[in-house]
């Protein structure tokens, strides 16, 4: 990079860095009550009846489409939670909205409570959250906003939902790397089966591309961390390594689903390049090259999500299909796959949605990997059981996938 390019990049990022996300005016939408009518509809008032007519027409069309798309066998659209959450499904889930970390009941969607954030934490970037195996303890990560690919130090906090339903205050558990890597966000996190370690797949920034090429493992008792950084990067277009899912397959053994992105894609990338790799994290850090391939997932080119459980299975979510107009109307299929051979064992769920497949994902697993949740920014987020997607009842659309955990 020439000096001109360096100076330009520095100046642009410095200028952009003067914008503080927490001080931006909230976007005014139709449900926000923050002046949408004044800024939008009133100024272009003739659009309102037109849009209303379009909306009514589309409601009818989509209702027909949904009814018509109802398949047989395992196919089922999202249902309202008329059935109780089973004894084994996680009792709570979290979402991060409007700067609040909210805990809600899986069964009713009702707000159980907030994990109160300090003013200092509100100014930091929320990276993600995950649940511990007890289903009541959660670990969340924040880091200071960075203006460049500089060094940052993510902090791990924990909170619990008590037996009486109270949400405890956040407690600082560990701080991550201040040097060596330059992570800029987490894409997946997982607590070990014994609850003693937290693994985090971190997103690293570079000048022109990004990789999720770092795994940090925190000892939740001592706060000590180990770093696995790089070693699997490949230069393919503008994107690089992506780690979709972290899961613990046993003491000190971490499995991760990874792929390499060929070009800019909105949510998913690396079709046909996915692998499940396993890493012995008891060795104290190093390169991701130390991991070994468990199974190649190239036979799932339309994979949009993967979750590993602790019984040697993978749940692989694929979205395929186009309608007659050429718009995407994806057939969403979740297969249970043998993690050793890649063989499809059974279909866990299948349904055709009138949505762009890019709007689906991620698929989340509970700490055991057995209970699955699908996130979509379209009001169809829900949990899966017996081939049925049970729509989460509260507060759709859930705005941020990385605020979800259960």
């Amino acid at each position, binding site marked *: 990079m020439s*000096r*001109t*390019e360096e*100076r*330009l*990049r*520095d*100046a*642009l990022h*410095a*200028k*952009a860095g*003067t*914008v503080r*996300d927490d001080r*931006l005016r909230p*976007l*005014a*939408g*139709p449900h926000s009550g923050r002046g*949408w009518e004044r*800024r*939008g*509809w009133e100024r*272009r008032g003739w*659009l309102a009846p037109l849009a209303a007519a379009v*909306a009514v027409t*589309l*409601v009818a069309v*989509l*209702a027909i489409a*949904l009814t018509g798309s109802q398949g047989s066998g*395992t196919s*089922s*659209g*999202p*249902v*309202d939670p008329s059935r109780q959450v089973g004894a084994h499904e996680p009792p709570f889930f979290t979402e991060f909205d409007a700067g609040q970390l909210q805990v809600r009941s899986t069964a009713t969607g009702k707000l159980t409570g907030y994990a109160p954030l300090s003013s200092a934490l509100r100014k930091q970037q929320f990276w993600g959250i995950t649940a511990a195996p007890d289903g009541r303890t959660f670990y969340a990560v924040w880091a200071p906003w960075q*203006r460049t690919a500089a060094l940052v130090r993510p902090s791990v906090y924990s909170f619990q939902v008590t037996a009486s339903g109270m949400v405890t205050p956040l407690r600082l558990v560990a701080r991550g790397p201040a040097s060596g890597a330059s992570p800029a966000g987490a894409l997946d996190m997982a607590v070990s089966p014994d609850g003693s370690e937290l693994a985090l797949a971190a997103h690293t920034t570079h*000048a022109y*591309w990004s990789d999720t090429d770092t795994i940090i493992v925190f000892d939740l008792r001592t706060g000590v961390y180990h770093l696995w950084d790089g070693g699997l990067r490949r230069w393919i*277009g*503008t994107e690089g390594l992506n780690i979709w899912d972290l899961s613990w397959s046993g003491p000190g053994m971490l499995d991760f689903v990874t792929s390499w992105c060929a070009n*800019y894609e*909105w949510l998913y990338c690396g079709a046909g390049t996915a692998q499940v790799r396993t890493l012995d994290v008891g060795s104290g850090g190093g390169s991701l090259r130390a991991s070994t391939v468990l199974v190649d997932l190239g036979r799932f080119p339309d994979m949009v999500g993967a979750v590993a459980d602790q019984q040697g299975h993978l749940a692989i979510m694929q979205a395929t299909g186009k309608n007659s107009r050429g*718009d*995407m109307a994806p057939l969403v299929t979740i297969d249970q796959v043998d993690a050793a051979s890649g063989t499809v064992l059974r279909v866990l769920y299948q349904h055709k949605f*009138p*949505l762009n497949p*890019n*709007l689906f994902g991620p698929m989340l697993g509970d700490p055991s990997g057995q209970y699955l949740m699908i996130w979509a*920014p*379209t*009001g169809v987020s829900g949990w899966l059981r*017996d081939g*049925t997607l049970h729509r989460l009842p509260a507060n*759709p*659309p859930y*705005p*941020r996938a990385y605020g979800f955990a259960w």
Partner: protein
Amino acid sequence: MGMGHSPVPAAELATAATSALFRDHHGELVRLALLMVGDLPTAEDVVQDVYASMHARWARLAVPDSALPYVRAAVLNACRSALRRRGMMRRADMLHRASADQRPLASAEHEVIMSEERRQVLAALSRLPRRRREVLVLRYYLGLSEAEIAEVLRISPGTVKSTAARGLAALARDLGEDT
């Protein structure tokens, strides 16, 4: 498995899809607009207007596959409109003046961040033709590839490459640097 299902109304889909996209990328879009129009209030207005406009049209757009590039393109279009409205397209020191206009409201932190050297670079950038400026911002701020920039600006990758090269060369000359 034989359970009923709840059809998702189109309006809800439109609302949800648009809201999620904008919430996730609100900061990035405002920053992009800021680098084009120069001041934060206008940048926020631009993004808000695009949000409002796109929200109404989202269902008719059938949720484009490349939603984010589409939104970026819409923000850039809105920036051009804002600049035209303000008669600022021919103001050679647009970004510099905008920064200066913002100074009374800016924090001490802002002052430290925006050193004189950086102001010079942004002023030189503002003196470039619009397309060169857009290409350089998309390349060196958002880090987009030539193909991605071509998609946003609806020009060929070859044009992106030549425009970026010419823009950089002009910037280097303006800053008194050898290329």
